[in-house]
């Protein structure tokens, strides 16, 4: 028997099997993770059917059927397999206090999927499930009854959404611009006051224009108020399944659907509409509803700024270590230090970023260049620039190591060939070695991007916020506002999943955000891989 065992071991088959098993397990885990996120994330956009249950005590339950499970520890002699229960999303949070409800299966008298129920997505309080009693406009009943009301409601909702767009434009662009200018003038006045010889004439002129702007502001606010009033002109009276009435201004409705009457095509259309609105809209209701556009934007922006910072930094360091430095004990120690830097916990980088970038560098910038804004910090507080720099520090070892590998892969013959043609060392490096090392540099960038996109902890100390008032990119000079705070998909997941008051209702959002984060990482990586591929091809075959 030992002989046989030895034979098996010697043949190496066992080892091959172990390797194969490891790879298979890995693939399963990765696949399972992606599958879980995709099922939960992509399912979120599908317009689910509404079921109406009549319970044995006579009450009704209306909502989306979510899951069915065996109640834990419910096995009794009468029910050897245990009782089961179903979970429904019943919405109507303002009436019931909760979005979800468990119903024990043996309490259900009947289940049906009525054709006339509607699902209303509201701007506040989540979804409403029920039927329409009547639609009113300025107190006058326009349509009564479920079907009539439904028909009358559609154009009203469309109109309300247009109004919302208009209001948002007014608030963000028009009033935002006025506020921006007023703030600029305020800072200018303060700056003049800080100077030794304040120029009275300029201050007076500035104050005059402030007055003018404030009048403009009042005018816009008035327009805004009128528009907001229009939102409340028409309203709808809804009835939930147990007969309670609910008055709802049409302005509070995002959309209304009758999922039980929709055919497959309509559902697919709704699916993509929902998907797009999550991608393009801003969050509502403490981030648990609405879209995640600012988070996507912030994530991509931060990764781009980080890439711009990390690549030159890492490449120059690698060039020095590999091409110029005398290979000896010191360089070896630097290499070890760089490699160890990659293993430092990311929160430590966060602390460093906060202490060095935000307080030291940012604080100095503020006292030197923005004294008029103090005590409000400009750069002396977390911002997308400092977050990006912190992540650049975090990922620079990867870029250094990959670039060094790329450089060592450049054949010695290229260097000598170039030098033998009368090139200096610098010329050889720029014209021959750097192009040859580019694929290696890009590999480093890909790894850096992959790491940076998913990093959350250091960002929480250096500039990420739950809700950013403005994107870091807008139409005010200098367009890119790197001092602003920003939103991030990774932080969004943490915030929505663990910091929101209504965790259960926010769960789909967590999966959706996770899915989109993964998609962003994959997209950023694929584009870098595509560039690398194009570059390698250029060096191998035809080129100009």
């Amino acid at each position, binding site marked *: 028997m030992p002989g046989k065992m030895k034979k098996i071991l010697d043949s190496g088959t066992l080892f091959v099997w172990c390797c194969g098993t490891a790879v298979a397990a890995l693939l399963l885990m990765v696949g399972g993770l992606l599958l879980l996120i995709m099922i939960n994330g992509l399912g979120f956009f599908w317009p689910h059917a509404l079921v109406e249950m009549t319970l044995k005590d006579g009450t009704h339950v209306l909502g989306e059927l979510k899951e069915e499970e065996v109640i834990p520890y419910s096995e009794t002699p009468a029910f050897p397999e245990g009782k089961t229960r179903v979970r429904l999303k019943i919405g109507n949070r303002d009436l019931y206090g909760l979005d979800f409800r468990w119903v024990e299966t043996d309490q259900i008298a009947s289940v049906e999927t009525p054709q006339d129920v509607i699902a209303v997505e509201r701007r506040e309080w989540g979804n409403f499930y029920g039927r329409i009693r009547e639609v009113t406009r300025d107190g006058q009943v326009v349509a009564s009854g479920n079907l009539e009301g439904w028909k009358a409601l559609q154009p009203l909702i469309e109109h309300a959404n247009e109004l919302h767009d208009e209001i948002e434009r007014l608030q963000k662009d028009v009033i935002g611009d006025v506020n921006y200018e007023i703030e600029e003038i305020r800072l200018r006045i303060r700056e003049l006051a800080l100077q030794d010889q304040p120029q009275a004439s300029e201050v007076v002129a500035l104050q005059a224009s402030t007055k003018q702007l404030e009048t403009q502001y009042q005018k816009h606010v008035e327009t805004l108020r009128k528009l907001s009033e229009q939102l409340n002109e028409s309203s709808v009276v809804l009835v939930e399944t147990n007969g309670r009435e609910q008055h709802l201004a049409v302005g509070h409705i995002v959309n209304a659907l009758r999922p039980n009457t929709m055919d497959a095509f309509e559902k697919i259309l709704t699916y993509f509409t929902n998907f797009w609105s999550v991608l393009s809209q801003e969050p509502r209701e403490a981030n648990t509803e609405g879209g995640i556009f600012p988070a996507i934007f912030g994530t991509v922006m931060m990764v781009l700024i980080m890439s711009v910072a990390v690549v030159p930094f890492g490449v120059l360091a690698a060039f020095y270590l590999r091409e110029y430095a*005398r*290979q000896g004990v010191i360089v070896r120690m630097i290499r070890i230090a760089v490699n160890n830097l990659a293993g430092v916990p990311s929160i430590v980088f966060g602390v460093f970023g906060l202490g060095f970038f935000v307080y030291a560098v940012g604080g100095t910038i503020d006292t030197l260049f923005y004294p008029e804004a103090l005590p409000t910090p400009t750069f002396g507080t977390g911002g997308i620039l400092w977050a990006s720099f912190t992540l650049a520090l975090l990922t620079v070892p990867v870029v250094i190591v990959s670039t060094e590998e790329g450089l060592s892969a450049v*054949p010695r*013959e*290229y*260097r*000598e*060939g*170039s*030098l*033998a*043609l*009368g*090139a*200096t060392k610098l*010329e050889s490096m720029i*014209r*021959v070695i750097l*192009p*040859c090392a580019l694929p290696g540099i890009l590999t480093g960038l890909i790894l850096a991007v992959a790491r940076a996109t998913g990093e959350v902890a250091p960002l929480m100390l250096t500039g990420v916020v739950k809700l950013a008032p403005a994107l870091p990119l807008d139409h005010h000079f200098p367009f890119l506002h790197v001092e602003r705070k920003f939103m991030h998909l990774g932080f969004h997941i943490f915030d929505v999943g663990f910091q929101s008051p209504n965790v259960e209702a926010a769960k789909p959002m967590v999966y959706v955000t996770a899915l989109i984060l993964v998609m962003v990482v994959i997209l950023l990586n694929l584009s870098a891989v595509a560039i690398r591929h194009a570059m390698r091809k250029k*060096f*191998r*075959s*035809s*080129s*100009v």
Partner: protein
Amino acid sequence: MSSLIDALTQPSQTANHHRQTTETPMASSASSQDKEPDPKITVEAASFFYGERQALFKIDLAVPRHQVTALIGPSGCGKSTLLRCLNRLNDLVEGARLIGKIRLDGQDMYDPSVDVTDLRTRVGMVFQKVNPFPKSIYQNVAYGPRLQGMRRRSWLDALVEKSLQGAGLWEEVKDRLHHSALSLSGGQQQRLCIARALAVNPEVLLMDEPCSALDPISTAKIEELLHALKEQLTVVIVTHNMQQAARISDLTGFFLMGELIEYAATKVIFTNPSDSRTEDYVTGRFG
């Protein structure tokens, strides 16, 4: 063995004196130097060290103009080291050190006032391992001229054509100048490297076993090329192939363990060598 060489090369006290007496130690092989009183390159008592290890021992050698000089010898004998000293490529090696003098047209190559990049444009090199850059054929040839600041497209075009013709490659690649150099065959790539070296218009071309990785047909083409190139410049070639040295060179130096054993007209080396070790080597008894 080294004492013999030392004894032969002793009289080289000063540079001038040495130049006059270069031929005396090699009395048996002096025929070529008689014809060439003003050598292109003179190596005077050159010893070369890689750190502690000495690779060359007091080499004395004069390379005449417009001739092909072949350096032969077994692996590790120092012939490539000497070649790389001739355009100061050994400067790159950490701990490398040269004692003695190497002169190009009478001027000391290792003088601090010498611009190394300028020197390397005067002394071109073709390597054993074929090394065209991963760029287009055109960019490869134009690399050197561009470094020297040549930007005019029409000049570059003309120069690229001239250099490729000089390397006998023009007819084969004229329709695909902008294809990658790596798409060429090994022999074509080596001729491209020669064209690339010719494009900077060097006075001397150093070749480090240029044909060792090539097939016989490509080798024949490059050998043919050497005959033509000799008209314009001076060639120093390191080769392992004794037939090749006999075919192409005018003078041959035989190296053994870092020493120049014998340096004479090729005909003499291969028919009537004065040193028994040379005879053993060229007749294939060892090495």
